[in-house]
């Protein structure tokens, strides 16, 4: 009884963690499956076939490359623009600043289908050719809000006196930005960039509306799910999960080493 009372928080935490991790584990386990039919839903026997030949399914790696390209460019575009917007909103007082502040939130609050449809209408009316560029433009647009929100939080907590101190200590405008402003805003910018990458990479609805004949990875997964799910999808999913986990662990290690170096 006492044991339960003392550990109830830990148990609840572990259960929640399990709840979040379990789907990923299922994906991982089934990436080693050798399904009988075309659907990878039932465990048969252990096999490394899919891991040995991740591009074995037609169009899979092509769609993966496209998704990567879009995600990288969308991240760069949204991060650069979003960072500038965030600084402008926090640092400067100008007309309609309040209105812009709330407009930035709109894409996050709007249902994706609505935005997807309206974007398609816009592109069609402009006579734009649907494909890589329309998808990229759409992705930068909806990623912007998230980057702005992430960077803004960071910039708001930043003491403007720090930049004054840098200028006072012989740093010119460029030096001040590179040596002080950017390093301090970096965690916010990085968080915004990561968010943008993840959102762009797995976006389905907006992409599906505006991609024309291009096929991104989420579209490929959706399309193949109609006819049968190749094990390679699980392989890609598992690989991405592993990379993400490794990045987090790496970040933690670097952080703790720095902290250790700082406290002799």
């Amino acid at each position, binding site marked *: 009884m006492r044991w339960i009372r003392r550990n109830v928080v830990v148990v609840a935490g572990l259960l929640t963690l399990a709840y979040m991790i379990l789907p990923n584990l299922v994906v991982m386990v089934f990436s080693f499956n050798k399904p009988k039919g075309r659907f990878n839903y039932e465990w048969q026997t252990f096999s490394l076939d899919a891991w040995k030949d991740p591009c074995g399914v037609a169009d899979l790696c092509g769609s993966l490359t496209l998704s990567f390209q879009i995600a990288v460019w969308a991240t760069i575009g949204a991060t650069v623009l979003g960072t500038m917007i965030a600084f402008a909103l926090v640092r400067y007082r100008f007309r309609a600043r309040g209105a812009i502040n709330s407009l930035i939130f709109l894409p996050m609050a709007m249902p994706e289908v609505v935005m997807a449809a309206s974007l398609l209408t816009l592109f069609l009316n402009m006579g734009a050719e649907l494909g890589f560029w329309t998808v990229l433009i759409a992705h930068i647009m909806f990623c912007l809000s998230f980057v702005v929100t992430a960077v803004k939080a960071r910039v708001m907590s930043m003491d403007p006196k*720090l930049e004054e101190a840098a200028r*006072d*200590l012989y740093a*010119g405008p460029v030096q001040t930005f590179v040596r002080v402003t950017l390093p301090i805003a970096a965690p916010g910018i990085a968080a915004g960039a990561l968010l943008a990458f993840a959102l762009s990479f797995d976006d389905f609805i907006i992409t599906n509306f505006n991609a024309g004949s291009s096929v991104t990875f989420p579209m490929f997964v959706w399309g193949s799910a109609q006819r049968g799910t190749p094990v390679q999808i699980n392989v890609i999913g598992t690989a991405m999960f592993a990379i993400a986990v490794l990045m987090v662990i790496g970040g933690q290690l670097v952080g703790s080493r720095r902290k250790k170096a700082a406290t*002799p």
Partner: protein
Amino acid sequence: MTETASTDRGGDDVRLTGISKSYGSFHAVKPLDLTVPEGSFFALLGASGCGKTTTLRMIAGLEDPTTGSVFLGDKDVTGLPPHKRPVNTVFQSYALFPHLDIYENVAFGLRRRGIKSVKKQVGDMLDLVQLGDFAKRKPHQLSGGQQQRVAVARALINHPKVLLLDEPLGALDLKLRRQMQLELKRIQTEVGITFVHVTHDQEEAMTMADTVAVMNAGRVEQLGAPAELYENPQTTFVANFLGTSNLIEADVAEKTGDEVVVTSAGVKLRLPADRLTTQVPDGGRLLVGVRPEKISLGHADDEGSIPAGRNRITGRIVDSSFIGVSTQYVIDSPVCAELEVYAQNIERDGRLVPGAEVVLHWNPAHTFGLDAAQDIDAGVKTVDEEGA
């Protein structure tokens, strides 16, 4: 004009000429001239919003003056951006770079000027502020007092012509503040650099500075050595803001060669003519001031033993508070409802309790006279607001 002046104006005085700053219709600093002599510890003292920090920021280049010029020595630096001025600032919030360790914080200015071998200088500077062992720590791992010392080291390492201190002790608790006041004074004596110190704490200004400029509503009310300001305030603001003054409204009765006699509610008071800050005709009004610690307090029964020639007022004790070294009395008298008297606790007279009839007396030489056309309470409320 500067060329000709350069020959006789040696050194690195800070000179402000006709400098002012306005934000729209609000005049933060009204046109003022100020010279800070090289190597001095100069304090700008005033309540919040009086323009002292704006003045400091104009010297640093962080604020562009609306009118006027800033000179360092002979050089007009008005148009120079902050990073091109040989001036460094210690900010109120310290503004240490959170992403850099203490060593890099202190080395920042040297590195920006392209100096490669900074190790010895940084080491020496950290020793000067007694933080040699903290080089690898991050700012947030230091206490407030330590952060404050890092901020001083980070500025001083550049050997600026002037060090500007913007309420650097404001965030510290009282005991640490006293300690840091002495510490800063020691450092200033050691390095010999001109310090311009902004503060709202009159005790701090008087303890540390050689010269104090008292600012009020965007202008310098009075400038001088601390003792000079305290003993000879020129305005009611200075009289009330620096310590406490008893100000009594009085009429001039007669003026002899070096003495002025005034009357207030039938009481005759005398003061030396050279302590009048204003020319007043016979019958004109005057504010007569005396500091609370200059007044002696005696019970009414002992009135006969008071030496002749002293100013004397009778009254009744309204309130007394014992504060260790002294006892502070509030006296109700015909000339003023709330006269303050500070009596040293040497031999306490048991009869001096609230309600007792007393006689206040002091040496007329300790009386000063101010222009009556001023607000008698100027500078009083502000002190309470600051909690100083």
